[in-house]
């Protein structure tokens, strides 16, 4: 098995148009949650989301190319461009053929699908736009990245709800580690702000009518987010040999299925995924210094995750620093784990642990050190990023400081 380095990162989210803006927002604890603007919300019980404000394709894509891309696919390419540039990848025909692209997306081109359904069911038209299918498919992000860079190796998309991009990054990690690919572009993208999907979230009664307050006693649910984060993964030795900047090392990946309920989280399922990740990284629990929590701010997730962390880490749980950056970039579903992996990379790279924003009141059932509201200057060696999806499909990544 080869060691795997993260040599490039890119992001677009409510926290800014690139990783520099993302890192700065986390450092100062500035959230991107506000009134939803990309669709009408008058008929909704909630009004707030974490959107990429004032987004237009124009600085990024020519009009004709953008015609073929839903917003979620555009985000995927924008983040991948930054990651590839950041890694200073030098493309050769061989590298293009052996590079992999593995993306995560939960809902794909929902906005495009919504527009089609409005045409059909609301406006009474008897046809929808011919690009509805290629814009809606969840693999469009991976496909457009492959065309952007001429990458002809393995490319696919993983859809496991809120764990999608953690499963994607983990799969890419394994492919680079075992030698299937010499380079991988991996991460996730999502753009779920269409009325149809917002109504579906409203019906579940898990979205906060105000803001996102993970682990806080007065938390009232999640806030939806959008965006993308992408990474370039390479074998560590090869990356060092070409003088690439190593931002962090990916050292562990664990997965589990709860096998109990389609929406309720499970303490044991979450704990099994964390233990599997520790085994994969060959680490003792005491070696982890920071956890980027799944931390959705629903009543159920935060107390389940707290109990799972206590089960896995025992007494060390009280020495761990934990935060949920969803309090700032929102819950971006299939892009969530990628944004959180990026927050974890930045924490290791810069020696600054991001805070849990909007924290107002300790909850005795979530009694961990959640870095309330203010980032912490602290260099840790190993960090974990948790993702626990609806459907009970869990994925946990472990990263090491470079």
């Amino acid at each position, binding site marked *: 098995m080869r060691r795997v380095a993260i040599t490039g990162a890119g992001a677009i989210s409510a926290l800014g148009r690139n990783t520099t803006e993302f890192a700065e927002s986390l450092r100062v604890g500035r959230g991107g949650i506000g009134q939803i603007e990309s669709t009408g919300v008058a008929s909704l*019980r909630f009004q707030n989301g974490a959107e990429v404000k004032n987004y237009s394709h124009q600085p990024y894509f020519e009009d004709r190319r953008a015609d073929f891309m839903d917003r979620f696919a555009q985000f995927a390419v924008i983040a991948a461009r930054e990651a590839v540039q950041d890694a200073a990848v030098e493309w050769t025909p061989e590298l293009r053929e052996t590079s992999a692209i593995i993306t995560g997306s939960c809902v794909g081109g929902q906005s495009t699908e919504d527009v089609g359904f409005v045409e059909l069911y609301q406006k009474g038209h008897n046809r929808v736009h011919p690009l509805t299918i290629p814009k809606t498919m969840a693999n469009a992000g991976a496909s457009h990245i492959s065309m952007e860079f001429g990458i002809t190796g393995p490319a696919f998309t993983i859809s496991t709800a809120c764990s999608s991009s953690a499963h994607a990054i983990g799969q890419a990690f394994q492919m680079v580690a075992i030698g299937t690919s010499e380079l991988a572009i991996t991460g996730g993208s999502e753009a779920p702000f269409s009325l149809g999907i917002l109504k579906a979230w409203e*019906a*579940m*009664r898990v979205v906060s*009518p105000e803001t996102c307050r993970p682990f806080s006693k007065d938390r*009232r649910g999640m806030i939806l987010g959008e965006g993308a984060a992408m990474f370039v993964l390479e074998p560590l030795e090869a990356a060092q040999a070409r003088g690439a900047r190593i931002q962090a090392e990916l050292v562990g990946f664990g997965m589990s299925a709860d096998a109990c*309920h*389609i*929406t*309720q989280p499970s303490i044991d399922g979450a704990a099994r995924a964390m233990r599997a990740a520790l085994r994969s990284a060959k680490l003792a629990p005491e070696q982890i210094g920071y956890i980027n929590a799944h931390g959705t701010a629903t009543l*159920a997730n935060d107390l389940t995750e707290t109990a799972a962390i206590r089960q896995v880490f025992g007494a060390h749980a009280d020495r761990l620093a934990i935060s949920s950056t969803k309090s700032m970039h929102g819950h971006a579903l299939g892009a969530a784990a990628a944004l959180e992996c990026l927050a974890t990379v930045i924490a290791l790279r810069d020696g600054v642990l991001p805070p849990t924003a909007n924290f107002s009141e300790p909850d005795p059932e979530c009694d961990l050190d959640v870095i309330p509201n203010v980032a912490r200057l602290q260099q840790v060696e190993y960090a974990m990023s948790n993702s626990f999806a609806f459907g009970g499909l869990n994925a946990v990544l472990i990263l090491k400081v470079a």
Partner: protein
Amino acid sequence: MSEDLIQRVTKVIATSKRIPLETVTIDSEFVQLGIDSMDAVEILFALEGEFDISIPDEEVRSVRNVRDMCAGVERLVAAKSAEAPAGQ
């Protein structure tokens, strides 16, 4: 609380949870009926349809049994008919 309202609420619960109607009474606790949070959300959805009301999240947070659920529905139905203009 009207008998009619209790019957309609218990029927919605039984139909939604797919359990025999006779197992659901005004004294049933959700825990006894095996109603979890997702079941409860589905029942609220069905109640909104049955009574043509909108049930806000704040109304449901503390509801753990059929009696409280009936009382909540009754309150919302009354509020709705108070709002509706006469003759409609």
